[in-house]
């Protein structure tokens, strides 16, 4: 009985930790878009807009492929 309870508690703790990690990741992904777009220097996840802006200004493109950490 004690062993089962320990296993159940352990599983619940693990699940809670995984849930927290997933929530953290979700927050990071959402905040990344918010912060980068607010800073204004980067075109976020919109390649056609980048090409259009480069064509309009004559500037070269700097395209960064970067996962949200």
């Amino acid at each position, binding site marked *: 009985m004690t062993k089962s309870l320990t296993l159940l508690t352990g599983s619940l703790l693990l699940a809670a930790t995984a849930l927290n990690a*997933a929530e953290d*990741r*979700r927050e990071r*992904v*959402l905040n*990344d*878009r918010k912060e*980068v777009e607010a800073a204004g*220097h*980067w*075109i*976020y*996840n*919109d*390649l056609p*807009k*980048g*090409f259009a*802006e*480069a*064509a309009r*200004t004559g*500037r*070269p*493109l*700097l*395209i*960064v*492929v*970067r*996962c*949200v*950490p």
Partner: protein
Amino acid sequence: MDEFVCVRLVQANALDLTLFQFDYDLTFAVFFMNTDRTIYGRYGTRSERKDATKDISIESFREALAAALALHKHYPANKTSLAGKQPRPTQFKTPDDFPSLAGKYKPALDYEGKVVQSCMHCHQVRDAERRFFRDERKPIADDVLYPYPMPNAVGLSLDPKEKAKVKDVAPGSAAQKAGFKVADEILSLEGQPIISIADVQWVLHNASDASEPATLNAQVVRGRKKINLTLDLGRDWRRHSDIAWRTTTWDLRRMAAGGLVLEDSTAEERHDARLPDDGLALRVKYVGEYGEHAVAKKAGFKKDDVLVSVDRQTTHLTESELFRYLLQNKMPGEKISVTVLRGGERINLELPMQ
């Protein structure tokens, strides 16, 4: 940076693979490009999992930016020299075209729903490419197993704080035989202007495969002189690359080792186990626990077993070399005879290929 139109892409979903060809194990890859889609150069290099500063730096990024601007300034007069930098024809135009990824991800991230789960990672593209070979029961080609080789595969160590400056030349290497010297700055390779270590890797990646030796023409600046060098890449040159650090190697471990992570035994471990220095002695560092990564565990392999014979091969192999042997010679469904050393005893096991 203000002189560029800066675009940040955070997903591989629907990535145009006819344009964005790079080392998919990177978590940070940069393209410098004209609006007509002509690529001026690439930036972003990685050779290990933890220490990014080993391969990239703010200093070399700044140099690459300046060099890209210079190429843009002289464009299109320099278009011919940029021809080799352009993407190669590819069978799969987007990740969704790979059979193992088809229909799994939508083109855009689901910001209103499960945004994390909706994101395809770049490394999944390489995983899918290898899986395609495997599912077709074809040997995985060298350039797919060893993508974007680091310059040290040909004996060149480049300074991460410079564009492409030689920091060291390995004795006896192809680079030494070609005449490369410390402090040489690589101006061009195969006629392509080099603005970063990633550009060097691009040339190496696209050099001929293992079936025929390749020759690369280089121009370096040494002191004030421009010098032309010829780099002869011997047969199998890619196989000097270490792929153990790569995220995509995780799936190779599933295919070739049933989820085992292997590490070469140290000289001390070999001595204690009375194993020869030139013999196979791969220690099981980790045994996968779940799903297809638990196949070796189910077959009886345990942590700290030492593989001393695999398919009757007993000569020294690194984990990367063993994977290449198995993935080019053994197909899913086959079972490979393996002898492990466990507590001083030799035990025979069968390792299923996937």
